[in-house]
Structure formats: C-alpha cells, structure tokens
C-alpha cells in the first residue's frame, strides 16, 4: 500500500484548506487586490483572480477561480459589466451564498463612482459598449480614494471584530494617498494637452485626470481587434492631427501599436495599466509613479 501513501502525500497539500484569516477576499482585478491589501493588512487574505497581463473583459471562469470564490467572504470587482463574461458563472458555480449579487460580500467599485462615457445609444453595432459607462475607473487617484473609503467600511461591516483596524488603515492609506496624489498632479502637469493614440478606451479616466487628449484608438470599435483598414485610416488621420505616442496597456497585443509607431514615427508606449503590469508597479503607489514616469518620457 506504499503507493497509496505517496498518492495521499502528493494530494493532501493540494486539498488543504486555505489559511484562515479574518476576511478572505477575492479581488477580480489586481488594483482592487492591492487596495484590499492596503486596507486589510494581516486581517485579510487576498486572492487576486486576474493579472495585469490579462484582458479583464476576456477572462474564463477557470476551475481555480471557482475554487477560490468558494471560500471568499468578500468579492471586490469593478462592476459596470466589466466582468459580465465570467463573474456570474463564478458566483453561481462556487456555491457560496455570501458573494452573490446584492449581498454585502459582493462589492463593486464602480458603484462608488460617477462613470464617464455612458453611451447615448445602446447598440452592439457600436462595439462591446458598457451600458453603465466606462468601467476602467482605477487610473484616476481620486477614484481610488473614494473606493478605498467605501471598501474599508465594507470590510469593517463584514468583520466587525476588527472594525477599528480597517478604519485606522484606511486613514493611514488615505493620508499617504492624498500626499501622493498631490505630487502626481504636480509631476503630471507637463502632460496637459498631450495628444496620444490609445489601444482600447481603458485609459479614459487617466486622460481626463491629466488633461491629456485621445486622438484615436487602435480598436475600430470597443472590443474588436485592430484591423488593417482601420489602422491605415488612423495613420492618415495622424497626418492631420499628430499624436505624441501610441499607448497600450500591458495586456494588449503589442503588434498593432508597433505597426502604427513605425509608420507614424512616434514612440509606442506600454503602460502597466494595473498593479503587476511592470516591475515598478508593485502596488498602487508604484503603479501611478511608473505610469507618470513612462508618460513623461514622451511629453518633452
């Protein structure tokens, strides 16, 4: 029966119940994972369902996500239909009543914010539009601050024993965040009016915050991959209304940006987009530091 012992020894760690923290948090995107970490400290154990190298629209409800959602006390998602292709399945298949829509254990960041780019007309002929507005809210520091305040309260509500700790950490975080935001505002001043081409409309809040200008998108319509005809049209438009850079997020395919960069003779710039998208973007502070530093290289 030796083989049985070995088999059990091999399988048991895999089936071991995850470490017990006061709050098990399932973060849909890395930015909310990083925020939950700032607010949760030792009280929270955090699983981040996606990485900066994944397109948040196109996630598959993989068995591993269902397994982690099963033990979560709190799911922190973006909302506004960003996760519509996978999160509803993860919720129903996890058999976890705490994280169903409408429960305190299901937190949507976009519920705390005013969204921009709410479509006037809902029609898929316009591409994969989000009815509630642009869901990529986290690249504006004031949005992070608002979500932080609401998320800390939610964590305190779900783990009443540690309320004081969550609030104290939220205070410390908001304090640091406010100082950093002021600094980023100053550092980002030269970016005002900077014209850029984006890949997807996932940088709109960043552009609005810094006063930058989007002169085109590589995607012909939201959610549709770039096509040769659209790229040539974009190139022609750039002749009249030139951009300083082609900017894409870490998860986006670099080829279209490269193509346009070579022909329009403007740099192709990769932004980390979220925590983990570059070596420097280790946390939310690093994310904004690195994003600004990269944008400033083309502002001269």
């Amino acid at each position, binding site marked *: 029966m030796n083989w049985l012992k070995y088999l059990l020894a091999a399988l048991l760690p895999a089936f071991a119940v995850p470490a017990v923290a006061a709050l098990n948090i399932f973060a849909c995107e890395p930015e909310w994972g990083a925020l939950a970490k700032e607010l949760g400290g030792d009280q929270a154990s955090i699983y981040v369902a996606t*990485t900066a190298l994944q397109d948040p629209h196109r*996630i598959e409800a993989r068995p591993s996500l269902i397994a982690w959602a099963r033990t979560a006390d709190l799911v922190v998602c973006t909302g506004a239909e960003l996760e519509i292709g996978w999160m509803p399945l993860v919720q129903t298949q996890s058999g976890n009543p705490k994280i169903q829509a409408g429960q305190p254990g299901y937190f949507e960041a976009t519920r705390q914010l005013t969204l921009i780019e709410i479509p006037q007309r809902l029609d898929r002929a316009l591409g994969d539009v989000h009815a509630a507005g642009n869901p990529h809210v986290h690249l504006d520091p004031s949005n992070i601050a608002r979500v932080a305040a609401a998320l800390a309260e939610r964590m305190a509500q779900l783990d009443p024993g540690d309320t004081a700790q969550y609030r104290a950490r939220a205070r410390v975080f*908001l304090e640091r965040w406010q100082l950093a935001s002021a600094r980023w505002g100053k550092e980002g001043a030269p970016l005002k009016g900077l014209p850029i081409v984006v890949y997807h409309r996932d940088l709109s809040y960043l552009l609005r915050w810094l006063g930058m200008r989007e002169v085109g998108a590589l995607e012909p319509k939201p959610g549709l991959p770039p096509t040769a005809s659209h790229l040539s049209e974009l190139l022609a438009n750039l002749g009249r209304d030139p951009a300083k850079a082609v900017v894409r997020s870490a998860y986006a395919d670099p080829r279209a940006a490269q193509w346009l960069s070579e022909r329009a003779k403007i740099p192709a710039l990769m932004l980390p987009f979220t925590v983990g998208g570059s070596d420097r973007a280790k946390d939310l502070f690093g994310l904004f530091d690195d994003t600004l530093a990269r944008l400033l290289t083309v502002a001269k």
Partner: protein
Amino acid sequence: MFRRNLAATAVALAFAGPAPAQDADLAKIREEIKQNREAYEQRIRALDKRLGEAEARAGKAEQSTTKTETAAAGPAGRAGDNAFNPAISLILQGTYANTSQDPNTFQITGFVPSGGEVGPPKRSFGLGETELTFSANIDPYFRGVAIAALTPENEVEVEEAYFQTLALPLGLGLKGGRFLSGIGYQNEIHQHAWDFQDAPLPYKAFLGGALRQDGVQFRWVAPTPVFFELGAELSSGDQFPGSDQNKNGAGAGTIFGHVGGDVGSSYAWRAGLSYLRTSPKDRAYEDVDSLGSAVTNTFTGKARMWIVDAILKWAPNHNPTSTNFKLQGEYFRFKQDGNLTYDDSGQAAPQFGAPFTDTFNTEQSGWYAQGVWQFMPRWRVGYRYDTLRYGTVSNGIVNNGLGPTAADFPVLATHSPTRNTAMLDWSPSEFSRLRLQFASDKSRIGVTDNQVFLQYIHSLGAHGAHKF
C-alpha cells in the same frame, strides 16, 4: 497594535538589562518608554485628525456621486415594471450543407439508435435551432433560467427550464427542472458554444446528442484551493439510454466529480469521472428486417455508463484574447443488460407474426479527442477524431437460432464507426461566428459520408457567460 508593540519593547528592555539592574538605569529605561509612548500617542492623534478630514472629504464626494448616479440612471429607463425584466438573449444559427450521402439514411451502425436528432443537417440551406434564453434572479434565494429552442420545423422545444439555489451554505447547490446533466465535459455546454457543428460520436450514440433531464441536481464544491466538486442527479430518466418508465421514484441517477486547477501561469485543466444508471422499460427503436420491412424492437433492462473527461487549455498568461489552445477528450463505456423484443406483427405480411423476446447484453465504448487553436485574433482551427468501439453485443434472439437472424437487425451489424473532422472559424466579434467544417464520417457501415458545412452562429441581447 502600537500598544502591543510598546508592551513587547518594554518586556524586551526589562529582560535585556544586566541582572542586578541599577536604579539609575531602570529610571532611564522608564523615562525612555514614557517618551516613546508619548511620541506614539501624539502620532496617533495627529493621524486621527488628518484622516478624519480625508474621510469627510471622501464622504462628501460619495454623496455627490450617489446624486449623479441617480440622475444618470433616470433616462436609462430604470423605472417601471420593465426594470425587472429578465436578461434575454437570442441565438441565431443556420447551415449550408453538402453531403455525399443522403442525410435521411443516417445511422450509427452497430449501436442501438439513441433517438436524438443526431444526423447531419439537411442538405442545401437550412436553419439551425434558434435559442431564446431568459434568466434572472428570482429572489435572494433562487435564480431561474429558461431556454426555448425554435426548431426549423416550426416547433418550440423547452431545452432547459430550471431554478438554481443561491443561498445554500457550505458550497452546496441545488438545481431543479429540466437541465443539461453535469456528466462528462461537453454535455453541459450549449450547442451554440460547441467547437464543431455537431456532437462527437459517443454523445450521439450513447446520449442522443446530450443528456437533458427532468429532475434535480445536487452539487457540492469543496473549500479547497484546487477545484473539486461532486454532483448527483435524480431524474425521470425519460431520455436515452433511459425511457419513460411510468413509475414512482426516480428513473435515472447520475453521480459525477470534477477536479481542476491551473498549472503555471498559462495552463488550466479540468478532469472528471461520471456514472449514469437507468432502467429503461420498453425502450423502442425502429429497424428493418431482412426483407426491408419496418420492425419495432424494444429493450427492457439496465443501462450503465461511465465517462472519463479531461480538458486542458493553454493561453499565454491566461489571456486568451490573441491566441489560445484547447485540448479536450472524453472516454465512454456503455453497458446494457436485459431483454430485447423483436416484433414484426405490425407488418401486413410478417415473416414471423409473433414477438420474440430473449436476452440482450451489450458492452460498448467510444471516445473522442479534439484540439482547437486560435492562432490569431478572430481565427481558430480545429481537428477532431471520434470513434465508437462495437465491443460485444450478445443478442439472445439471434443466438438461439429459432427465429430472426442477424440480418433482421441491420442497425446492430458489427461496425466500429470513425470520423475525422476539421474546422476553421472566424469570429468578427464576441457575438458572431462563421464556421467552415469538413468531415469524413464512417458512421454507416461500408460507406463514407463526406460532409461540408458552412455555419453561422450569432448572439443577440444579454452578454452570456461561457463555461470553462
């Protein structure tokens, strides 16, 4: 937390000093601790004040947000009875088919017909099933889903109509109504989400395309980092391999287990084992006798099925947007023990004129393997090999030599079907797909059906979520 640290520092300091501590030293240490504490408390007070301010600001921002949200939500039609309408989506499908054999002669020789619509689509232009899906949360405890299929024959079929619990604790879930069984891998995937135009041979031969049942399903997901779920179903067992049994209690039962997870940062997998058991009663199928006249054969007995399934998906960094690869396979083993009745008495000039009943035992198997590769955005190619093994079929009526012979059971002639299928599909967006499929199908004994299908699948309305 600061206080705890402080206490720890104090203890450490107290024990760190030389054993016969001088009074002067102790006083000095006490003074240091006092200073430390004051410094900490000052800092905490300062933080409290500043952060209170920050919170108030955030609170204000939130309030104004809520206001704007309400205002913005107004014109979108969030008011009135319609606000609670379920999510609705519609699937449009159709094919153009070229087949070298007449689709009306389709059979899977060597296997008891499963009664499902498993043949190739009709030649020339043809409409596929139009699927209409409604889904919504019923209340905090249940979710409801209904899928109606509008068939090209202008009929409406209830594909699925079930409720599902949302609030059961401990990873438990209950589903009730009509639903696709959780056995195997592909069984639960809707036809419009299949990677090929049709189902693999073992699904066609052993489950009539897919096992759909009226009953209840229990599922339990284990609280482990590796995905592990167990499920069991009880159903009326009306559908092949069962039959309407007109009795109290459940006519069919299944149990299944699935395990899955990630390997590295680019692979995800799932594997499963399923068992189905049912006791069909007078389950009938049509055949022809050695003279070509129609005969009805009925089976009563036990049917059991085992399915092993596995799927491995690759996508760089789990990002399937640009490229991804999917490898999927399932193995079926199907066993039946009981009695078969051969009855030609319905014919005008029957050979025998009276029914024959004798033992009927089969043990057959089948498997398929398929790979689908998205080699660039929008484009995928796929290849599938599927086969059935005739195994053993022991037909007592033929064996005892008193009546009908093997020639009177042409559908059960010794044959192990195989098929090779290749496909190429193009998806302009997440909501549309065009597919070209070639197949060389040896389901019928002695002939090869070369098939070319051109298919469209479009999805309108609510954005559906696709299963892994």
